[in-house]
Each structure stands twice: as C-alpha cells, then as structure tokens.
C-alpha cells in the first residue's frame, strides 16, 4: 500500500492503518530499534509503541515522508528506553561508544529555549548540507540510523580507523558550530 493510502486510513481513524503501517515499515523501524537496543524483545516493544504513537499523531500530523516520520518516533522511543534501561548503570560497550560520541555534542545554552533548539537544529542541518556527501552519509548512518562502525566501514569500503577518524573530525566541526551558535559546554 502506498504511503498516502496508509495516511488516509489513519486520518479516517481506520484501525487497519496500524497493520498496514506495521507491514510496510516493520523492517525499516526494526533496524533502527535493533541498532539502538540490540535486544529482540525491547525492539519489538518499541515498534509496537511506534505504531500507536503514529496513531496518536496522525491526525493532526500529515507527514510528508511516512518512513522518516516512523523512524523518528522509533528512534526517540528507543532512546528513552535505552536511557531508562541504563539509568545509573554502565551501558553495554556497544552503546557506550555511540552514546559517548553523542554526549560530546550535547551543549548547554542560555538563550530562549525553543528558539535555541530550532536554531541549533538549523545549525545541524546547515552543517550536514555543507559537509562532503561521504562525510554526511557516514555521520547520518552513525547518528541517525545508529549503524555500527564496522557496518559503515563495509558500506564505504574504507577502514574502521578511517570511519572513526571521519566521525571524529565531523563531531569536532559540528561542536564548534554549535558552540558558536549559542551554546557552551
């Protein structure tokens, strides 16, 4: 079923929308959940939460890209679950790395909160626009899809060390931009 047809079902409050959505985007969202949670039960639960979250958001939302809409929800739910799971505990080594990498990009800002978040997001989008396509792909695969370094290494046919270095450089560049935009560490 096409995306607009699925969205139409949601807008009509037709419960088959959830089945259709699940059928079409299960594997897409499961990959994201799996990359974050690396646990079958947790991932499945997050996906169930995703479908119901979509149900509660459409309407009024009418997402232009349904896969990304679902992926974002899955990602956020998984982050919450991950944080809850490891609250006060040391996360698995697998996640400790990517969490640590992203922790470096958390900044504290003092200007108007909503405005700041919007502006910082614009900085991130601007940063992604400006960097090389390869760097962008590596960055997005790592921090949006949460791919492992090894998987990115295979995707780009470059060494693991090169991926790490590439990410390291990109993080530093972005951090400088974020700091200049109104944040402080």
């Amino acid at each position, binding site marked *: 079923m096409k995306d607009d047809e699925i969205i139409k079902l949601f807008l009509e409050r037709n419960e088959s929308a959830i089945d259709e959505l699940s059928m079409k985007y299960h594997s897409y969202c499961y990959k994201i959940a799996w990359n974050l949670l690396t646990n079958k039960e947790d991932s499945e639960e997050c996906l169930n939460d995703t479908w119901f979250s979509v149900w509660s958001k459409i309407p009024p939302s009418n997402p232009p890209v349904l896969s990304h809409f679902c992926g974002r929800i899955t990602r956020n739910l998984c*982050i919450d679950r991950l944080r809850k799971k490891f609250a006060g505990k040391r996360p698995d080594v697998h996640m400790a790395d990517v969490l640590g990498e*992203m922790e470096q990009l958390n*900044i504290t800002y003092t200007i108007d909160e909503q405005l700041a978040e919007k502006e910082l997001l614009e900085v991130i989008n601007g940063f992604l626009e*400006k960097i090389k396509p390869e760097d*962008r792909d590596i960055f997005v*695969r790592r921090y949006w899809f949460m791919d492992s370094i090894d998987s990115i290494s295979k995707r780009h046919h470059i060494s693991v060390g090169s991926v790490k270095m590439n990410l390291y*450089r990109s993080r530093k560049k972005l951090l400088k931009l974020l700091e200049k935009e109104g944040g402080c560490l």
Partner: protein
Amino acid sequence: MKKFDFFKEFGKIDSKYIHEAEDEWKAEKKIWIPKPWNKVAAACAVLAFGFVFLSNPYVQAAMKNLTLSIGETLGFSKEIESYTDVLDASKTENGITVTLKEVVVDDGVLLAKIHAQKADLKTQDETADSKEFSFANLNFDIDAQNSTINGQKIEEYGSGSYLPYSVDELMENGLDENVYDGVLESRFHYPAEIGENPKVHLVLGAYDGDELERNPFAIFQFDFSISHAELMKQTIHKELTDTAIETEEGTVKLTKISMNKLQSSITAEIPDELYGKYEMELLGTDSKGNPVRYELSELVENEVNQWEFKTSFWGMYLMTEEPVLLIPDVASEYMELQLYIREPYMLEEDIIWEDDTYIEVGETAAEEIMANIQDSDHELDTDEQPEKQIIGGATASTEIMLEENEEEENTDMGEESMLADDSWIAVGDKIKIQLQ
C-alpha cells in the same frame, strides 16, 4: 540554562539527509567533491558578526595580510617553513583567479595553500561564464583523480581543508566572501619514492556549493617541481636494533624509524598471530615530553610481515581547541613507547548470542585513547605522585614510572595526563628508542 540533547535532536534533521543515507552508498560520489569548511566557517562568521564586515574593504585588506602559513594553519608548533615551497603561481578560469601560494609535499601527503579572488575584468577571458558567484558559496578541492606526481596518479585516501586564519582573526574580522583562502590537504598512497624534485601536476576544482553533484565551476591546473630534497635531508632514518616487544603471541620487532617535522613512521615485524587478531598502536612521549601516537597503518610494499606504524594527521586537530601534533620532536634524544592492542570490532555475524541476549560488541573509538590525553575530564588526581601513574587498560593495568626529565619542555601534554580506555591493553614492556 538548558542542555541540548543531541541524541534526540539529531532525529529531527531534514528528511532529505535521511533519504540520502537510506540509499546504497555510491562510491563514485567520492570523486569531485568540494571541501565545505570555508562555507561553514563563513556562515559562523556571518552569524556572529553580521554582514557589515564583509563589505568593508579595510577588513578585506586586513584579512589578506593576516592569512597563516600552511604550518601555522595546521598547528605545527615546529617550523616547517624550510619544507614549504612558495610558488605564487596564478591561473584564471571562469572569472576566478586562483593563486597557488605554498605547497608542501612529502611521502603520502600534499598540502597546498591557495588564494582565490574574482578575476580582474580587464584580463578576464571573454568566454568566461558570466554567472554571478560568491566565494561564500564556492568551494575548492584537490582533484586527486587527475593530479599526478612524477606522472603517476596518487591514490587519495583522505583529504581535508582548513581556513588559514587564526580564531582571533575570524572572531575579530569575520570572513571576506569576496576572496577565498584555504589550505587543502590530500593524503595518499604512492607506490614509489617521490624523489628530490618531484614533478607535480596539481588539479584544483572550484565547486558551486548548491550544485555539488554537477561538474566543477572551474578547473585550475598547475605544473611545478617541488624541492623535496630539504625535507628528505632533514628526515631522520634510523635502523633499530634490539628494539622488541615480547607479547603472548610473539615478538614485535621494531626495525626502522623515519621522522621529520611533518610525520613519522616506524617499521615493525609483527607475527601473524598478533596483527591478525588485534588493532595496535604505539603510544608514549618523546624526551621533550611531547605526546606521541603511532597507528598501525599498512603492510610495507614487497615485504613479508613488515608493517608500518604511522603518526596521524587526522587526530592532531580534533582533540583540543588548539591542534596538538602527536609526533615526536626531531630534536628529541629518545622516545619511550608502549604497545597497546585491542580486539577489532566484531562483525555483525560475530555477535555472540545466548538465549536472545546480546553479550558483547566492542566498539570504542581508538583515537579516544589519545583524546583522553588532552581531555580535562581525565585529568589525573593531583594528589597522586607525579612520577607514577597508571596508564594501562582495565584488564591489564600497567604502571609507568615517569622519570624526572630536565629536558622536558611540554609539560602540559606529557604522559602524566595519559589514560587509556578499557578496551585497549598495554602489552609488553615499554620500549625506549634512541633517536640521536
């Protein structure tokens, strides 16, 4: 004060980037891609200081006068001017005049400082594309596909571009969008010695930032010879004897070292059992207290079990606000290094499962070891005795006795702040390499 939650906020990025990353990666995209950093920095400058500076001719003049040399731009604390060829050769294409200001070439690295400005209308080619452009939206890149050294193609594996301005300069004056200044870097494999006077055919591309996938806006070709003799002369080559590290998998024998002010490499015989199983790095300090890091790089051409550890350019600029080069000072008397190993990342198919429970996948960024050296979060307890710190991994901590050293100059970057993360394990004894 509120914390920006990057983990979550990154989920909101523009859909086009997600869509782009969903597709299979096409390697050919790596070709002809411009370096964007100037634009990013330009955006920062504009955001921070507004446009008033950009149209101020006095600022333009000041900016031109205050560009940094290649060495200064890259953060070399050690002088590399004697290795730098000042060319000042200009080419005009499509309404842009590019001046190749300085070039540094060494084995595996090419650095070029360029200045670009709109061509003088009187001399501009009449056939030039009349399309309006601004340097705020134009990027320059070394076209590694078409650049050659001694007629042989270079095989680029990494690149970078840097603004040759100090942070203070940028903060004070912003960035002039009527000119472009940049240091372009290409790291490459080259199967032969580049020789004393390598002939370089350097191709630069200027790209419209809004049309990255299209052909370059303008191409600039430069042919010149570089005096590499000075750098070769100042490069120390030393055969190493009795320099070995005993490990459970066998002996790592360091056989040669070469070093100059740009880079350093160590050749080592590594038993199959070791390099097949582990990632390796040599970490330590030189006798002047400079932190030093060598990464296991590649197999030496035509040699069996001969591997090269190389210092890395990449890590140098990313660990602190100010770049720190993790290379030994050529004037130091000796260097003390510790071999670190870690298991490589596990492949997905190697993930261990037990009743659907994930057990372990190691994935700690190797470079963070050295990042930790500079990371204030990892500063050692000042109550500890300065001459004795632990730097080993969690499973096999290794105590390092730091000797009192009157020669030490760079105490801020010394071993006392070194901490390895849990995944790296120090193996064997610390070795001392006599350099002088």
